Every structure is written in C-alpha cells, then in structure tokens.
C-alpha cells in the first residue's frame, strides 16, 4: 500500500490541554479513511494539523510526501478540503463557484472550463450552470461542494462532517460520489457522526479523549468488540470518554 498520509506520534497541545495525543497511523492511496470520535475528542484538531492549518506541537507527519512543518505550501496544493459548514458562495452561480475555486488553485481558464463541463455532467447539473447556488436544494449544494473540493484533482481530500443535515437518500448519493473519487485514486479522509457512513469506509479510526482508541476495518472492529454494528462499537469506546462535547 502506498501511504499518502503518515503520522508518527503527532501531538497538539493548547497550553496544558492535549487536544490530540501521539496519533500514529497511515492512510493508503485511494483509501476511504473514516475518522470518528465524539464531539471534543480531537478530530478537528487532528484534521487541521494534517491540512496545514495548525502547527503540531510534536511528532511527525507527511501528507502526499510533504512534511507538515516545513512544506505546508506544497501540501496545500495537493489536498482538497470540505468543511462542515457549507462552503460555496450563495450569491454566485454554480459555474462562478467552480471557476472561483479552480482559479484560486491556479488552474488555467481552459482547464477550468473543461473541468466544469465534466463536473456538471457527473452531477447532472448542466441545466443549473447559471443558477445562483442559494437557489439549489441542500443536497445538491452538498454534492456540488464535494465536487468543487476536488476540482483541482488533489491527491487527498479532507471531508469534515460533509453530510450534516442531509437526508439519507442524498447521503447515499453523496457516498456514490466519494466512491467514484476514491476509484479514480483520490484518498478520502472523512470525519462523520453517522455510523452507517462509518460502514462505508475502508478503515475507521475512533478517537476518544485525544487518542486513537481503535483503528481497523469496520468488520474487524465489529469482530473485536463483538458488536453487531459500528454504532455499538462506537458506543462501547466513547461512553467512557472523560471530555464532554465542545
């Protein structure tokens, strides 16, 4: 397995508070890696370190072969990011949003144009090219948001609770997009609160109180904890958490 994310005892402290403690794991190319944890467990902190938004306090990590301490600019060019907050511009049209995000990644206009066509076709949004994003239903926005986050063909895309507030049907469609992206070689790093989504991942890590409490395939985890579902696994691990949600 080609590892595109490797971390070794990656730690982030805020004063005396250890938000993320000695995280060590690898994520392979094209893998869908689920990053689970209760609120306040340190998921967001971990993700931000990997994206180059936070400097780690100690430990090592490389993203797409680049060091998180010294090569954040190179990392930024090779990753995509979709936050839990809806991150398209409401007052711009669908194509303007795509053009904007392509543009800030330095894509040329012909490249953006070509990509826009492909992307809209995949989402079957051709008829909405010039619609303001605010007029789209939430599910479509979410899917568009994902497509925009990989418009520049990154090696890794970080998804921070991407399906919050979306109905199950749309969530399923959203995951179809994720599978398609993973099949084309994009590594998916996703945090979620939905345990059915955890089942969709190739491997899952569960964070409790700033440390990785478990890391395996969903099947492996269920076996280890003798649970029927990921829900039970998660509950088994997270119920002893000392930190309360943030």
């Amino acid at each position, binding site marked *: 397995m080609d590892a595109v994310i490797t971390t070794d005892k990656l730690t982030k402290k805020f004063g005396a508070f250890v938000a993320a403690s000695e995280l060590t794991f690898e994520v392979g190319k094209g893998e869908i890696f689920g990053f689970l944890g209760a609120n306040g467990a340190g998921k967001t902190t971990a993700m*931000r370190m990997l*994206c*180059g*938004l*936070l*400097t780690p306090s100690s430990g090592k990590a490389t993203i797409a072969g680049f060091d998180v301490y010294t090569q954040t*600019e190179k990392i*930024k*060019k*090779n*990753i995509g*990011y*979709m*936050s*839990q*907050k*809806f*991150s*398209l*511009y*409401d*007052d*711009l049209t669908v194509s*303007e949003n795509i*053009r*904007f*995000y*392509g*543009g*800030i*990644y*330095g*894509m*040329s206009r012909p490249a953006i144009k070509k990509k826009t066509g492909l992307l809209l076709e995949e989402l079957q949004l051709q008829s909405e090219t010039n619609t303001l994003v605010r007029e789209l239903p939430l599910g479509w926005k979410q899917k568009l948001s994902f497509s925009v*986050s990989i418009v*520049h*063909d*990154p090696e890794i895309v*970080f998804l921070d609770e991407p399906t919050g507030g979306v109905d199950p049907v749309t969530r399923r469609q959203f995951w179809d997009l994720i599978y398609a992206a993973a099949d084309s070689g994009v590594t998916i790093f996703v945090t979620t609160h939905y345990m059915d989504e955890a089942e969709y991942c190739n491997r899952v890590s569960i964070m409790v109180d700033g440390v990785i409490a478990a890391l395996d395939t969903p099947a492996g985890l269920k076996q280890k904890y003798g649970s029927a579902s990921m829900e039970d696994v998660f509950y088994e691990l997270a119920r002893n958490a000392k930190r309360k949600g943030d």
Partner: protein
Amino acid sequence: MNWPETRNVKETNMRQLFTFIRKEFLQVLRDRKTLLMLFGLPIAQIVLFGFALSNEIKDSRIALVDYSKDAITTRLIGKIEASHYFDIRRSLAGAEQLNAAFKRGDIRMAVIFPQNFGDDLIHTGKATLQVIADASDPNQATTITNYLESIVTDYNAELAKDAQQSLQIQPEVQMLYNPELRGAPNFVPGVMALVLMLVCTMMTSVAIVREKELGTMEILLVSPFKPIYIIIAKLAPNLLISIVNLFIILVLSDVFLDLPVKGSVFLLVGCSILFILTCLSIGLLLSINAKTQQAAMMGSLMGMMLPTMLLTGFLFPIENMPVALQVLANLVPSRWYFIIIKQVMMKGLGFASVWKETLILAGMCTLLFTISLRNFKIRLQ
C-alpha cells in the same frame, strides 16, 4: 494535480489574485441594495444639504441702533425696514443690551450706525456701518448679512447717482460666536470623510467576517491562496467604490453647492486615496477581531462612525473641546483628512500647506496596515 516547477509562478499567482478580485466584484455588484446605499447616501446628503442651504430666510429679528439720527441713516433705515427679510427691534441701545439680546437669542443681527455717520459720509466720502451677526447658525448669519449688504449696495448706487463726489457706505461685518462660519464648506469635507469611512471600514470588515461566518475562509486558508491576496482582493472593490464616490461628491458639490475644488484635484485625490487606505486598514483590523458580521458592523458604527462624526471637527470645533477630547481627536484619521480637504478644496492651498497632515495620515496608514497584516490569521485558531 501537477504543479510543474517550470510553470511561471508569477503568472499563476496573478491568475489566483484576479480570480479572487473578480469574485469580489461579482458579489459586490450582485448585492444591489448595499450598492444603492453606498452610492445613494452621499448623493442624498449633498442634495439634502443643497436644499437646506438655498432656503430663504424671512423676518429675521434684528436690532437697529442709530447713534447718528441724520437724514442719511433715516433713509437707509427706511430701506431696511421696507424689506420683508427683517423684523426690526429699535428699543435696544448700548453694547450690554445688545449682548444680552444676542445671548437670549432675541436677535440674530445688530446694525449699528455710529455717531456722525451722515457727516462722515458727506465730508470724507466714506462711512462705516457696523454689522454684528450671530453666527452660531452660520447659514442664517451668512444669508442675513448678505441681504443687508445688498440693501447697502443698492443705497450706495443711489447715492452715487445723486451726488457729485463718490460716497461709500461700508458695512463692517462681525460674526459672533463662530467667526469662521462653519457650515457649508465644512459639510462637504465632513460628508467625504464620513462616506469614505463608512464604505471602507464597514464594507471591508463585513466582507472578511462574512467569509469566516460562511466557512469559506477555512477553505481559502487550506488552499494555496496567499492570505495577502485575500486582503488585496477584499480591498479592491471597496477602493474603487470609494474613488467613484469621491468623484460623485466632488462633482455634486461643484454643481449643486457651488463649491468647486479650488486647489489641485490631483493632490486632493492623492490624499483621499491615502485616507481610503487608512480606513481599509481599520476595516481589516476590525474584521480580525470580529466573529460575526453584526459585530463587525457594530464595531465600525460605534467605534468609527461616532468618533468620525464628533471628533473630526465638522460638527463641533475641536479647539473648543476639553483637552482630553482634543488629544483623542488627534488619533482620529478623519480629523487630519478633514483639514486637508478644507485647505485644498476650499482654500485652494498646495501641498506645502498640508504636508504635515499628509505625513500624519501616511504614518497612521502604514502603522494600521502593518498591524492588521501581521494579525491577519494565516492559521485558524
């Protein structure tokens, strides 16, 4: 995606920047309501003020004191009485009574004929008429003294026709309480400072905080887009809007208020851009500390608008304020900008007369911009 090192980095950077600037303009142009407000506000203020200025004043209460009581003063008083502009009080005499009447607000103006007025005029060809006006309302003071002066001018012409030698009555006008007649010429620079402050500070801070609220700021920070470009792109549309606004105000005040730019337009625009950049930096600074758009808005309104209104000097003369406020006023950028506009626009003075203010403004601008640049979060906390 491949980022070949051979690719022209500068070109890519420029492309990124223009993408962002284009987006900013799209957003600003699409927000019609805000746009209307931005351009409507200065126009409305100038037009309203124009109307307020052109209002005719009738039946102003004035005092007439005649120490000479000769044929000439009687005729001139007759003319003044005949005009419907004035409501005349003749019972007052002596400086103390006049003073008290002014203070009570009983009279707006006093016209005093000194002793031997008629004799002086006939023997020396010249006589001085004393006119004292209450200039706490500068518009009214200017208007009524102008009325009086025109009556005197008419009378002078009449005298000249009859007489062999030249006879000249000279009104000697004295403005009480507000000798500089702060009013119209103060208003335009005031509006300029206010509008530029509003557009630059508020729009900039709100625009940046909006990205934070939307969550798009995170995306931008994760992208290879440089934070300095975010700042430049945010400032660009506001800079342009402000410059357009500046020209609208200048043209309107020339056409409508008869206040042309007497000095160098180039100098005025240059100093204005300096002021605009200062305001943009303040907006930037506010956006760094504000978490919501409302907070940014309130910050600019309470933190910037009020000091601008009160401490710039166009509503209240700064030199009459307590020392503490005078010191505070020195920290308000619009105070210095206001002086520059007055000197350049109203008095037609050159750079030599405003270099000190320009230097102060430039210093403030550099300081604020450096601070806000340094504090602009490259990494989210």
